[in-house]
């Protein structure tokens, strides 16, 4: 399976949820690299790939994140 960086994933799949198996860690989010397991605009689509992969790879480091802005357009967050 090809290893891709988060920066590459973000460029190729803007505004989507991504599930990545981390194989090369880095403190800089963009330079983290791994196997792209799934991506979709709908986060729910990642649950089955997550569970399927986790069932076989119980100790894998899995990273799920959104490639766009954290706050939906038109909303001001005040957490």
């Amino acid at each position, binding site marked *: 399976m090809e290893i891709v960086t988060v920066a590459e994933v973000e460029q190729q799949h803007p505004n989507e*949820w991504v599930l990545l198996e*981390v194989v090369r860690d880095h*403190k*800089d*989010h*963009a330079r*983290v690299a791994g196997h792209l397991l799934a991506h979709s605009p709908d986060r729910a689509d990642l649950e089955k790939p*997550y569970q399927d992969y*986790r069932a076989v790879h119980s*100790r*894998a*480091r*899995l*990273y*799920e*994140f*959104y490639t*766009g*802005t*954290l*706050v*939906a357009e038109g*909303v001001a*967050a*005040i*957490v």
Partner: protein
Amino acid sequence: MRQRADRVPFLPGRRLVAVRVTLNELDDAVLIVDTGAERTVISQHLAARLGLDQTHPLRLQPLAGIGQSAPVPVVRLERLRVGASTVVGVEVSVYDLPAVIRADGLLGLNVLNRFGVTLDFNRGLLILRQPEQAH
């Protein structure tokens, strides 16, 4: 006393200060750095993936912000790593942020207060300083 500085880049272009964390060495997630949150918060989704027992929590406790939640489970994470810094035995509240916020929780004071913290907006860095014994 010397201090080691761990410089953790913010996730770029996200409008909020957010960092990647690793929970129990299994799942990486995006948490919003929140100095106004007394405790770290993770989503129900993430808590379930980590196998945290929400039916037998340490306790139930409401969260208060602009509004107030019903009591939510407080559970313990074995370890939380941000950058190169690891905190063990972290209590977290399990609560879902609104769906319009695409993060899995808040990195709150019960983690941040273990360090000397600098938010460097010019360089986009969360800087964590941990005291070390001088040799």
